[in-house]
């Protein structure tokens, strides 16, 4: 049974690949739905005193999300007359694909890495976090394609805003991670987890060395930048309903819109997972090793993801939208210099100690 | 795998890039064709690096990538300037030097 949890599936590479693909394709929507249900529907309703999402199905509006899903799927798939059909159809798939690809390197236990077979024994691919950030940048292409192919001014403006925003915030995102990488001495996510689990703080190994304690600046930068990458409030100019009527998604209906929805919340899920892995120790609990770690790893990771996601959505539902120039100024004048200084200080301390 | 299959692929891409540089009527596409040529060069370097079993090829490819990024930045700025001055992105319209 623990074989299955560890993604160490018996059988040829074809079977393995198939099962792994299925696992990922199943997990991402589930994660997206969990986040959507817990935070978008329940948390927001409580915070903002909304009654609608609390109603369907009786207890706490449990049916709301399922109902939404059914509604999206049964709707007609409309493609605007002036649209570039192939590009229009491909765009949501690329956005979702980027999310799926990111998820692949996230470790959920000592052996449980989807992309673990590449270098067995190393646990995951060598450049893990770098890979994740690289494929996360693919979604920009999808967004631009969607915005351009819709043949709609709002969509195009939204896509351009999204592209400018995603490029601007990718820098602090990557640079914030560099601090962690420098401290852990590896880009392998599994290695980063182990570095935190087995690390020491001033010689005391009681709680390991979660990098949130040493890289708190990096954590703050990562959270802000991730928020912007997700185009969530307060950085949601690309999809701003009140100005652009949902931006690049304006022409999408039915299951294509559902794709974007899943992409959005799935990406939030993965970013929360990355933040949990990079800064909170991932699946690990200090001093818990061996077979048992394979069992509780996924649970621990899930709890940490929910913790981080709570922070994300808390910010999302609390702050008003920034202006476009404020958004760029924040990235270029504050986050990037701060993250560069963070790298400098981290490097100096790494050499010093 | 043969080294040559990578080299031939890169030669093909390079040729395509040359064709694009000479024939495209939009400056951005000329830049894109230059990128094709640079990718061809990168494939060459990485293939040789793999043949020699070291990381030097990768390092050079990284330098090429960096320079490509800088080239695109400056190139697009130039394109924007040309567009602003001539209201056209066709390199044929920028023919002040015509004798």
């Amino acid at each position, binding site marked *: 049974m623990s074989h299955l949890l560890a993604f160490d599936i018996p059988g040829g590479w074809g079977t393995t690949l198939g099962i792994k693909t299925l696992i990922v394709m199943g997990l991402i929507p589930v994660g997206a739905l969990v986040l959507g249900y817990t935070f978008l529907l329940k948390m927001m309703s409580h915070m903002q005193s909304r009654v609608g999402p609390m109603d369907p199905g009786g207890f706490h509006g449990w049916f709301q999300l399922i109902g939404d899903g059914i509604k999206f799927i049964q709707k007609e798939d409309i493609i605007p007359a002036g649209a570039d059909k192939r590009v229009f159809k491909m765009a949501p798939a690329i956005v979702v694909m980027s999310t799926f690809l990111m998820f692949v390197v996230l470790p959920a236990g000592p052996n449980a890495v989807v992309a673990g077979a590449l270098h067995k024994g190393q646990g995951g691919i060598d450049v893990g976090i770098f890979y994740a950030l690289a494929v996360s940048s693919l979604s920009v292409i999808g967004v631009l394609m969607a915005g351009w192919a819709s043949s709609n001014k709002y969509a195009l403006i939204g896509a351009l805003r999204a592209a400018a925003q995603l490029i601007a915030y990718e820098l602090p995102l990557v640079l914030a991670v560099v601090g962690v990488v420098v401290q852990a001495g590896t880009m392998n996510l599994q290695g980063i987890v182990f570095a935190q689990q087995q690390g020491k703080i001033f010689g005391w190994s009681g709680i390991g060395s979660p990098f949130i304690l040493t890289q708190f600046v990096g954590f703050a930068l990562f959270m802000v930048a991730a928020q912007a990458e997700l185009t969530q409030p307060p950085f949601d100019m690309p999809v701003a309903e009140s100005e652009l009527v949902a931006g690049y998604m304006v022409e999408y209906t039915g299951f294509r819109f559902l794709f974007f929805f899943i992409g959005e919340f799935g990406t939030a899920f993965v970013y929360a997972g990355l933040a949990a892995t990079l800064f909170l120790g991932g699946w690990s609990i200090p001093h818990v090793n061996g077979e048992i770690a394979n069992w509780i790893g996924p649970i621990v990771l899930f709890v940490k993801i929910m913790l981080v996601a709570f922070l994300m959505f808390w910010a999302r539902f609390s702050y008003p939208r920034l202006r476009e120039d404020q958004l760029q100024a924040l990235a270029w004048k504050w986050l990037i210099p701060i993250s560069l200084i963070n790298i400098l200080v981290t490097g100096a301390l790494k050499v010093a100690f | 795998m043969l080294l040559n299959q990578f080299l031939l692929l890169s030669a093909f891409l390079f040729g395509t890039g*040359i064709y694009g*540089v*000479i*024939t*495209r009527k939009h400056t951005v596409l*000329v830049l894109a064709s230059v990128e094709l040529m640079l990718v061809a060069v990168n494939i060459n370097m990485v293939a040789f690096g793999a043949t020699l079993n070291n990381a030097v090829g990768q390092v050079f490819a990284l330098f090429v990538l960096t320079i490509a990024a800088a080239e695109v930045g400056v190139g697009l700025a130039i394109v924007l300037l040309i567009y602003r001055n001539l209201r056209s992105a066709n*390199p*044929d319209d*920028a*023919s*002040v*030097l*015509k*004798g």
Partner: protein
Amino acid sequence: MLMNHFWFLDHAWLIPLIPAISYAVILLFGKRYGERAAWIGLASIGSAWVLALGTVVQWISHVNDSEGAEARGVVQSIGGMVRNIRLAAESKLHVEPIIHSTTWFQNNGFKLNVGIQIDGLAVMMLFVVTTISLLVHFYSTEYLKGDRRFNHYYAALSLFSASMLFLVVASSTLQLLAGWELVGLCSFMLIGHWWEEKPNSNAALKAFLTTRTGDIGLLTGVIMTFFVVQKYATMAGGKGTGSFDIMKVNEAAIGLGEHGGSKSLLFWCAAALLLAIMGKSGQFPLHTWLPDAMAGPTPVSALIHAATMVVAGVYLGARVYPIFYQGFHIAGGTINPMAAIGGATVIIGAGLAFVQNDIKKVLAYSTISQLGYMVMALGVGAWTAAIFHLFTHAFFKANLFLGAGSVSHSGANHSFDMKHDMGGLRKYMPKTFITFMIGTAALIGIPFTAGFFSKDEILAVAGENNFTFFKYLGLVGAVMTACYMTRCVYLTFFGEYRGGHADAHGAGHDVGHDVGHDTHAYVSDDHATPIHDDHAAHAAHDLHDAHDDHGHHGPHESNFPILAPLFFLSFMSIASGYLLSPMLKIEKFALWVEPHFGDDKHFNVFEPGVFKAIDPILAVAAGVVGMLLAYAFYWKKAYGENITERNGALRAGKNFLVNKYYLDVLYTDIIVGGVKGPIAQAAYWVNQNVIDNVLRYTGKGAAGAAQFVYKYIDQKGVDGVYNGSASGAGALGGLARKLQTGRVQLYAFTVLFGLGAIALLLVIFN
């Protein structure tokens, strides 16, 4: 022991760091604190001063410990702090410097080290720089009160001190270069402190650009030092790797010189570095920036002239002295570029000081002259004497400059014009007068002041090393020094007070002092560019004037922040001389500052001179002669008033000096002006009668010939050829023009196709 013997020496890097931090703090937060920002600067330089004092004490005890053989055990037991103490031949002992360096980066076997190198020379400089800087900081609190950029002034002052200290403790020539450039930048900032007035910004630019000329030399020289090391390492066998470490550079220079390796490399290296010294230390002919630098606030002038900017050049010379010593064959006793430049500067600077009406300019030219002494001393192999003169000169020149500032600030309505705004001030400001007189005495070399000992030392060692010419050159310089300083003192402190009534002055200079600011003395002095309508600039000075309303109530004594540094410096102007005097059998200074250049056996130039009674007698005689001359000339008017106006020869001499040897106007004035008069008359006659006739007949003959040539050869033959080739070229060009389609992509095609064809050919024929 809580703090080991070497704590201050090991942590000397703190000394430049503290003022550097203060710079950042003042710059970033200075506005918030207003004038209290001065105290940040003062506190930082004060703590740097304390640290420097600590290094002095520890270094001296270190040297003293190393002298006795029984103390060696203690020193060695300190372990890695000192590498090892070697006893050289004839029990002559050079204490090794304390070097702490770390590899900044390395590439292919070459390591770039950065760190600190602390030895007697560096410790001495640390002491001088921090002391003068501390006094200048303190002085400026009063002098610049109410200035419009008070904070920036203090920030720049801090950075100035920091960069000079950084240069001093540098352990590699590259660090030295960095400090050097920073010093240049800071002097630019400070000279142009009141940049709103055009002359000031011009002066700053001139200083910067002139020293930059020299900096080219430094950059070249530093690069060449790398190859000096490489060459030496290669000579020793094996793969030679270059280095920028000063210790290695010095060792290599000595080694190359002793073993006859590549003298020309050493020579050019020394020449390049000499160019750097010329630029920075105001040596002829690159000295012209230094007097213009008077445009800055007076405390800055004191700092520049006594402790930081100009001294950097001499320090460089002392730091990598083996390069000069070997490159210029100083041991040979023949004239070498370094001594020649220094000697020329002594005379030239002193000569110019005679004709200045601006007290600061007198002092500026005096500095040039004294720097000439130092460089000359280095050039004649008197290392210790040069450094000792640097040491004493720092104190008395700072004393004089700050005294001049005091005179101007409190006595002369912020003017520096001695002729028009000063005179008789000894009654009004007796304390300033006394300190100024002590400084003057030291500069002239009155017996038993600091300048007497140090200048005497230079002359004595020059004589010993068979540089007799330079010895007498130095004596002539001493006569001139005494002369112009007596004039300066006379004009400033004796006679009748001439300032105070603006309308009593001629129109030419009233621009200068009515403005109520010292920088304008610069304008009035040149008489070249009287600026009459800079009232906008005056408005900016109003703050100062408002505070300074006493300026209109006649001359009076300065108050404590100005006088305290003066007293201290006066004390040092006398006391600092007693560290080295062969006459009195004191050789402490030589013992404490002599550096270790890596090869004691072959390189030992640090012996103080041997005392011979004739030397001080000559020097004193020179001083007395100079003073008597000036006394007769200016004071008693033995030749009547205005002899320079009446006597043609003297007038010419004076004009020569007033125009600064015509260096600035060399071509226009000499060539155009010299030809006027009798020469021109005679030339005109010859021209009219002889040449014209010859020409006339030659011309007629030539015209005939020319007609023929024109008609037949030129028009038909030559023109035909040219016309033909021109039209041919035109036709060809018309063809070639077709190629210039202006289509970028066609060009790209041509290039790429051609490239492909060449590649194909290469493949085929390979």
